[in-house]
């Protein structure tokens, strides 16, 4: 009897026969770019990352072409979280459409609501009461802080630091609980309505906010000490994934990723909405455009958001929080584009009304989708481990990318 040896996976004679249920034919390239990607040069190989991978911030699959430890090229595969939100919105009425947009970017869902609400309000030609505008600014800035503190923890986690995420969740949990007291939901708030907000500020929210505001700045600063002065973190991110302003504009980048290249483009200043023109705040920018700059711009934005909240709390007027509107929203036929500046960039909604109670077409633009395109160009030539650092610094959320 011949001796049984365990087959080695390196043995070139081992192959899966074509009839086997495990057999999968090599993919046929459909496009010029894919053909280029699928052609392996000498010494190159493919590595699959995801869809369940802790560093991809959701269900993203990335096929990486590597040469040794160097990334030659990569191809993100999307769609694992695709729910067809645009189609669902076309088959729902205007109020229902708002709550479908909540789970897009579950980290900062108030911004996903704010964009369609802004578009619908333009279609309806309705003026939002001033108190409702202040409440929207207040809750959006709180949500921005919650999103950025989580980013700060995530970024450190992707680089191998386990502690900061626990610290950043202290702030995020407090804000989430605060907003839960106001809206009744912890994650998918569904708080904005066409023409206002759902319910005025309540006592629990205000008392929690007051306590938090008195220690927020100091607490966030002390959390930053964990990361900003960490030499490993700084040396791994400085000079990594450098993006220049011209490329950023041509790639359609917005938000902190664009501002880290030196372009001071912020919708709160350039296309003022709500009561932002009356508030005082700075637009933090950096000129380096590397991963560290993208991180630091977001940290500076947290401080500006606290400043905005402080002003809003002092200037908030009394009054109604909802405009007078019919219960059934039936805008006149027309088109409108509403956009807000979110923690990741420009959230836009293009809504077409045909005069019925359902949007005829509702296009949702999400900044993460555009930013994910940059992962390929920015990581080319770097090490595999740096792919995570670049991806984390671009801060994509897959719920928004996949829609």
């Amino acid at each position: 009897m011949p001796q049984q040896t365990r087959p080695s996976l390196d043995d070139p004679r081992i192959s899966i026969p074509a009839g086997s249920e495990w057999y999968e034919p090599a993919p046929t390239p459909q496009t010029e770019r894919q053909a280029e990607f699928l052609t392996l040069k000498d010494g190159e190989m493919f590595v699959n990352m995801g869809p369940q991978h802790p560093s991809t911030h959701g269900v993203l699959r990335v096929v990486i072409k590597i040469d040794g430890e160097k990334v030659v090229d990569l191809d993100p595969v999307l769609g694992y979280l695709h729910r067809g939100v645009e189609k669902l919105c076309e088959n729902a009425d205007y109020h229902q459409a708002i709550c479908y947009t909540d789970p897009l970017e579950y980290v900062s869902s108030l911004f996903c609501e704010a964009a369609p609400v802004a578009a619908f309000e333009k279609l309806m030609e309705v003026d939002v009461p001033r108190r409702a505008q202040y409440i929207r600014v207040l809750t959006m800035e709180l949500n921005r802080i919650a999103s950025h503190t989580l980013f700060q923890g995530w970024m450190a986690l992707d680089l191998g630091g386990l502690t900061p995420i626990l610290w950043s969740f202290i702030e995020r949990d407090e804000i989430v609980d605060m907003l839960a007291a106001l809206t009744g939901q912890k994650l998918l708030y569904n708080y904005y309505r066409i023409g206002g907000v759902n319910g005025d500020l309540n006592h629990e929210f205000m008392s929690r906010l007051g306590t938090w505001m008195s220690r927020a700045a100091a607490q966030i600063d002390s959390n930053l000490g964990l990361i900003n002065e960490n030499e490993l973190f700084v040396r791994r991110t400085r000079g990594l994934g450098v993006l220049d302003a011209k490329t950023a504009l041509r790639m359609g980048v917005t938000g902190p990723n664009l501002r880290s290249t030196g372009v001071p483009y912020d919708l709160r200043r350039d296309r003022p909405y709500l009561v932002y023109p009356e508030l005082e705040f700075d637009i933090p920018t950096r000129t380096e455009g590397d991963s560290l700059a993208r991180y630091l711009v977001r940290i500076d934005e947290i401080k500006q958001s606290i400043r905005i909240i402080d002003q809003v709390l002092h200037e908030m007027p009394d009054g109604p929080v909802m405009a007078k509107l019919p219960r059934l929203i039936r805008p006149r036929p027309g088109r409108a584009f509403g956009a807000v500046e979110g923690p990741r960039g420009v959230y836009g909604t293009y809504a077409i009304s045909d005069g019925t109670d359902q949007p005829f077409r509702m296009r949702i633009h999400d900044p993460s989708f555009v930013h994910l395109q940059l992962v390929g160009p920015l990581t080319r030539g770097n090490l595999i481990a740096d792919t995570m650092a670049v991806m984390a610094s671009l801060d994509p959320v897959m719920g928004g990318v996949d829609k």
Partner: protein
Amino acid sequence: MDSALATLLATKLGERLLLPVRQRFDETEIRVSIAHATETLRILHDDPILEFEMLIDLCGVDTGEEMQVVYHLSSSRSSDWLRLIVPGLERNAPRIASATSIWPGAEWMEREAYDMFGIIFEGNRDLRRIYMPDDYRSFPLRKDFYLADDASRSPAAGVRNMERAGTPQDATPATALRRTTGA
């Protein structure tokens, strides 16, 4: 509303405009034909006075009779959003030139418009499905694609299997790519 932008666009674009410039709230809307689309985008991007450097959004629209491609642009020189509508794409074979030569970042948005509407962007190097699986045959955002629970509206009175991803038995390769499943 930026009325200076309206006159500027009218002089710069001239007879390329299909309709006069329309303005409402902070939006300026222009329409050009498919043949002039790339040229117009190029003028809007390169002109030193207009300087629409940012492509904020690109999407397809199915009106039921024709397809449209809609661009939303932003410039630091104007406080308005510029909406460029390119109407009149044929529903059975929608084709338009790609904007990736001006904005490489339009690549994925065009892939999405192809995935959802079947619009072919000539010149896009990577025009394939982005959300749906590669063997998927329908274009979900087209108006003749009905949701399963919305079947009462369908012409076939509710017999439509939306999850059937394979090619219909009677379809030739050409029609299979252009028609929604079982339509």
